[in-house]
């Protein structure tokens, strides 16, 4: 069976250009970037060239880029790094963040810090006004994601950054879903800290970065050698960083995917009654569509579509297998039942119009079948 991939927000394939660069650097550049000799120097050169490429993508200085093992570590370094260095105080975040932020906040609460979780509105947007209402005199950090991983809804970061500046708080954004896909400029966004992850835009798993604005001090998570300006100990993952730099250099070109995403969304809405786009009212990532199908179980649809050769997801990959409905959709005010009947389609560079048309057919067939056997739908609790 041909399998088509529509789950790019979970992860995406390594880009062919990146793979070539990666293989080459793994084969040839094996020195330790901290070593004095020739081998170390070559590794260091590659590492710093990669850092400059990532910095160019973000519109910052190279020294402001800290390589990490991925998005989760970048988020953890930002949150724990700021709060533990201060040793007390208040943090504002949103209730629809990725678990890498939410669960780090949970740990900070256990350590005695206070956290306020701002809810998004029904279209999935966390407004600057709502953040302002949550701010206190002791607010040290505000962390709001750039685009949500489940709905693709983009957040009004410039306004939130302005709130942070007014109250003297550090502003962090989890840009894992946007960096490398659409233009992300740290100055324009007003971010002091920004997390990104390589495997979301053509680099391999195991490499990510945290942008740390000059002047922002962090307590490290790891203790060891004096790597990454003493912000991240551990022998540098040079091939990973080189791949990340190469992927960054390809340009953030996912904007054009909107055409295919719209084709998919409109095709599904035209074919399937009682289907609704979650976050439809908001500005969204060009590749993401989260659709609610009244009366169906999202998890069953994911399996059913996989057996027809289409990979999609219900909720995020990080929480799949869990019983709980999506915390993101619940935060937007959906009922648990509506949240469970939602499915995420996330496109990427490899998708074609032909695949999209096949997916529309499969979704229409699957929904019809699921509704035919669904008791809640038959009982008339859902009206088409």
């Amino acid at each position, binding site marked *: 069976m041909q399998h088509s991939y529509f789950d790019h927000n979970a992860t995406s394939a390594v880009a062919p250009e990146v793979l070539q660069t990666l293989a080459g650097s793994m084969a040839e550049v094996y020195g330790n970037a901290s070593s004095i000799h020739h081998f170390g120097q070559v590794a260091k050169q590659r590492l710093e060239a990669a850092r400059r490429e990532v910095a160019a993508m973000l519109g910052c200085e190279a020294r402001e880029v800290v390589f990490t093992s991925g998005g989760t570590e970048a988020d953890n370094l930002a949150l724990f790094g700021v709060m533990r260095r201060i040793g007390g105080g208040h943090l504002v975040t949103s209730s629809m963040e990725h678990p890498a932020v939410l669960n780090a906040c949970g740990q900070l609460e256990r350590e005695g810090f206070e956290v306020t979780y701002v809810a998004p509105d029904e279209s999935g947007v966390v407004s600057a006004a709502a953040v302002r209402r949550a701010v206190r005199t002791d607010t040290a950090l505000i962390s709001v994601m750039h685009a949500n991983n489940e709905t693709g809804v983009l957040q009004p970061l410039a306004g939130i950054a302005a709130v942070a500046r007014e109250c003297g708080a550090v502003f962090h954004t989890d840009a894992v879903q946007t960096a490398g896909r659409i233009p992300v400029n740290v100055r324009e966004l007003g971010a002091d800290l920004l997390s990104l992850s390589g495997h979301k835009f053509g680099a391999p798993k195991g490499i990510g970065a945290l942008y740390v604005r000059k002047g922002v001090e962090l307590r490290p998570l790891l203790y060891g050698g004096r790597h990454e300006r003493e912000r991240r100990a551990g022998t540098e993952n040079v091939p990973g960083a080189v791949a990340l730099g190469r992927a960054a250099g390809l340009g953030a070109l996912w904007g054009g995917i909107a055409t295919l995403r719209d084709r998919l969304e409109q095709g599904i809405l035209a074919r399937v009654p009682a289907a609704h786009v979650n976050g439809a009212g908001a500005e969204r990532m060009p590749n993401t569509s989260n659709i609610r199908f009244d009366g169906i*179980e999202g*998890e*069953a649809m994911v*399996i*059913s579509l*996989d*057996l*027809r050769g289409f990979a999609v997801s219900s909720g995020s990959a990080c929480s799949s*297998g*869990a*019983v709980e409905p999506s915390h993101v959709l619940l935060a937007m005010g959906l009922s648990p039942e509506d949240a469970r009947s939602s499915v995420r389609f996330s496109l990427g560079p490899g998708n074609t119009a032909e695949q999209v048309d096949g997916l529309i057919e499969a979704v229409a067939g*699957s929904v019809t*079948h*699921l509704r035919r*056997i*669904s008791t809640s739908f038959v009982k008339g609790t859902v009206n088409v």
Partner: protein
Amino acid sequence: MSDLIAVAMSGGVDSSTVAALMKRDGYNIAGLTMQLWNQRRLPELAAEEGAAGRCCSLDDVYDARRVAEHVGIPYYVVNLERQFEESVVAPFVDEYLAGRTPIPCTLCNTFIKFDQFLELADSVGAKAIATGHYARVTQNAETGRWELRMARDFSKDQTYFLWGLTQDQLSRTLFPLGDMVKTEVRDLAIAFDLPVARKGESYEICFVPNGDYAAFIDGYLKEKGVERAAVQGSIVTEGGRELGRHTGAHQFTVGQRKGLGVSSPEPLYVIATDPKSQTVTVGANESLLRSTLVVRGINWLSWSGLPAPARAKVRIRNRHIPAPATLYPLEDGRVEVRFDEPQRAITPGQGAVFYSDDLVLAGGWIE
């Protein structure tokens, strides 16, 4: 491609062999594992070796996934914990507290494996399900009725737990191991080089660690925040003489001999438990013998009902050899069973299954 069939995979030898067999025979199959119970719940009850080896442990899911990879089929884990707790665990606890000894496996088969799982299989596009149960399904050529029959291997037969299946469920269920004996299955698993070919078997109730029902019920109620008033009661002889005290009649099961906490020159058995008065009656082995019982909540399988008294063999617990009896219809669909010979330890809450040779006629709950 042929119609999709969903194989219920537990990670054990039996269901793994089903998957391998069906794949070999050219069926279009997908493997599904039902996550029914979180073994990390009630950690204070965990066995010393941890949750390994019990149903729904992470190890079992890991094993099932390995088998699916080995066999080369798509594989999914579906979470039915909420439904399992509602339909199986909570009723199990209620029944126990009401002084009966329930069999959760029958509830699970009736409400989860052959209901929720069939619906799930249907929802992902499967026309039928296959499981590793030892039982057979046939269709009566004359009446068109689906019939449940004992497995060829009597020592492995699981029809005692399957009497709740409806005609629709039977029509969409395959039991590929029904014609095999256990050693054949084990040999096949080895021949298929399945990663679980030499895995041991579990006989206990999957969500109750070490078979300690009382500890499970106490832990479960504590987790639920249900404060049960401290109960105690008497352990008495059939003549009413108090032999000792206990801290809850639910800790005793009819026929139980060990752990009574009373000393006596003769071996004593639990004859009856009464949750209302918290009285546990004990007596000699012969006192456990009864000739009649009444069955409620009957599901008719091969027969459509009981218009007049009829002869059958009746099984009152899993390893019990079906005993000759006459069935008498009572009002409101219940049936009185009169055995030819008295039977030992007829236990309220357990199932009673009626057979004609290997054919399952019906089953229900002992009052």
